[in-house]
């Protein structure tokens, strides 16, 4: 794979709010990314990490306060139109016109991208069959389910055969079947040479799809690379330990202190969202015996003790100091949905 980035984001900065009514939020804080051509690139991070802001800037919907955006050599800030022609964008909040049929929406899209009438009919058939929409494409969009809307949106993004497809949380809130179907199409597209950038707060989605990924939190890239490389570079094995089904903070702190000095244990982190289970990084599988004896001496029971290779979740934990789920929980209730909607309005 070429190292040269088809998409380059350099030192992006973006701040929202900070007026009389709202506290300032640094959505992007010196974020830099390189996406190689032909790569399926995942942006992984909790809600509010800055993924959507980065994507909106890439798609020329938003101007950064500072930094540079280049797509295939075109400067998105100086020549947004050139970049728009190269990009297909599938937004997080599906914007469809309920009154139009799916086919009419695709037709509108094809005119907005200036497809010629002869091309247009052919392309429409192509994307309709690619996403298996034949049965309902002539019904009004208002009658569609979430999965159908998402497929239609993806089809609209593909209509002009963009070199780069950008998807913001493409499977959020979808049923398993629709999700799998969209994954399959994305893989096919990647295999036929389309560069894909996708944001997600689903670990398994990024793990299953991405050739490369960046872990984003608080508007910064905390780790970057292929999933395999990121996992391997962590080293060691993982142990998930529970002394009882649900523990508490006090007990977990006590056990952490105990295991920190246990030979072969490199790191211990308490996982609050999993009832204070403990995630350990250990040298190898033989260490489990040492852990068991350590607990036996302290007269502690073992509810479960599981050994595994490093997962993407471990990568996340290593990079950010907390699990993705904890990061998600931390922002619940902090976000002002109305304010965010306003932010996205033009």
């Amino acid at each position, binding site marked *: 794979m070429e190292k040269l980035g088809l998409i380059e984001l350099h030192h992006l900065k973006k701040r929202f709010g900070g007026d009389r009514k709202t506290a300032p939020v640094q959505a992007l804080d010196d974020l830099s990314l390189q996406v190689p051509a032909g790569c399926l690139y995942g942006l992984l991070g909790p809600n509010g990490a800055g993924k959507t802001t980065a994507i909106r800037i890439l798609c020329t919907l938003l101007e950064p306060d500072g930094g540079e955006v280049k797509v295939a050599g075109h400067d998105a800030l100086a020549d947004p139109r050139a970049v728009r022609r190269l990009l297909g964008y599938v937004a997080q*909040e599906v914007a469809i016109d309920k009154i*139009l049929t799916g086919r009419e929406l695709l037709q509108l899209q094809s005119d907005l991208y200036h497809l010629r009438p002869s091309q247009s009919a052919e392309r429409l058939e192509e994307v309709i069959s*690619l996403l298996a929409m034949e049965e309902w494409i002539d019904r009004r969009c208002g009658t569609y389910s979430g999965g159908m809307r998402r497929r239609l949106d993806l089809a609209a993004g593909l209509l002009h055969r963009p070199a780069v497809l950008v998807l913001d949380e493409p499977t959020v809130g979808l049923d398993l079947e629709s999700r799998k179907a969209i994954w399959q199409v994305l893989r096919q597209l990647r295999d036929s040479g*389309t560069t894909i950038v996708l944001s997600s707060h689903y670990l398994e989605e990024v793990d299953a799809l991405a050739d490369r990924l960046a872990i984003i939190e608080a508007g910064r890239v905390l780790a970057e690379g292929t999933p395999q490389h990121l996992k391997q570079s962590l080293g060691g094995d993982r142990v998930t330990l529970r002394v009882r089904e649900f523990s508490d903070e006090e007990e977990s702190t006590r056990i952490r202190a105990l295991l920190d000095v246990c030979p072969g244990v490199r790191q211990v982190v308490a996982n609050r969202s999993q009832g204070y289970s403990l995630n350990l990084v250990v040298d190898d599988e033989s260490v489990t015996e040492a852990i068991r004896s350590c607990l036996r001496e302290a007269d502690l029971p073992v509810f479960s003790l599981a050994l595994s290779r490093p997962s993407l979740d471990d990568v996340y934990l290593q990079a950010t100091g907390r699990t993705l789920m904890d990061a998600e929980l931390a922002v619940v209730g902090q976000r002002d949905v109305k304010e965010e909607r306003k932010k996205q309005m*033009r």
Partner: protein
Amino acid sequence: MTSVSPMLSPLPSEAAPPSPLAEVIQETLALTRRLFVQLLRRPSTLVAGVIQPLIWLFLFGALFAKAPAGLLPGAESYGHFFGAGVIVFTAFSAALNAGLPVMFDREFGFLNRLLVAPLRSRSSIVLASVLYILSLSLVQSIAIVLVAGLLGYGWPGLSGFLLVLLTLTLLVFAVTALSLGLAFALPGHIEMIAVIFVVNLPLLFASTALAPLSFMPGWLAWLASVNPLTFAIEPIRASYNGSNVLSQVVLQAPYADLTGTHCLVILLTLATVLFLAVRPLLDRKLQ
């Protein structure tokens, strides 16, 4: 979903890229078509838009049917007098609402779909609204002219009818520009509807739609003779009277006697000024 789908073939190299003008036309027509599909699938707007002015015409005509002859200068009956007012007010209301679909597109994120597309000119979004409202209000006006004629309130004649269309075009242009400006300046559709409410009827009552200037107290006569609606109503009313509107005095305003040409020039100026005033805002929001 089928397991094996045909993959997208690569983009063929463009032999001759279409001209910029062709692209502007393509995107504008597509956006206009969308507005008309919406209208035809949700015809209540259209039906209400045609029926309402006819009810106005019918009821007001009946209300003042027994007004003493000669009360209204140059008109045989109140319906005769009021027809021009209804035509202008209908077009005005439609144009004032022109920004609402744009506001909804902003609120529901559909505008973003348009903004990530490589539109040749973002003015296409504005142009589509103008085309749509213009044709809609022309359809409404033709309906009113026909029904007014059938009710016995007179016919404008062919040159008169062309003058009606020209006057309405200028007014619709001006008010649509204003409405689109509001659609981008206001935070949401609630505020937009509130503004429309506050502007709509007062402008009607402070114009010569319902009564001539000579009926009004001095201050209201002043207000009515700077009201844009009046500049549209009077030439249309005069053309119903079949005279040479362009050179004839159609409005005896407190400050000057204005001919039809004067009124049209004022409307043209207003449309130009509003368009220029709103443009920077649209540019900022759409770039």
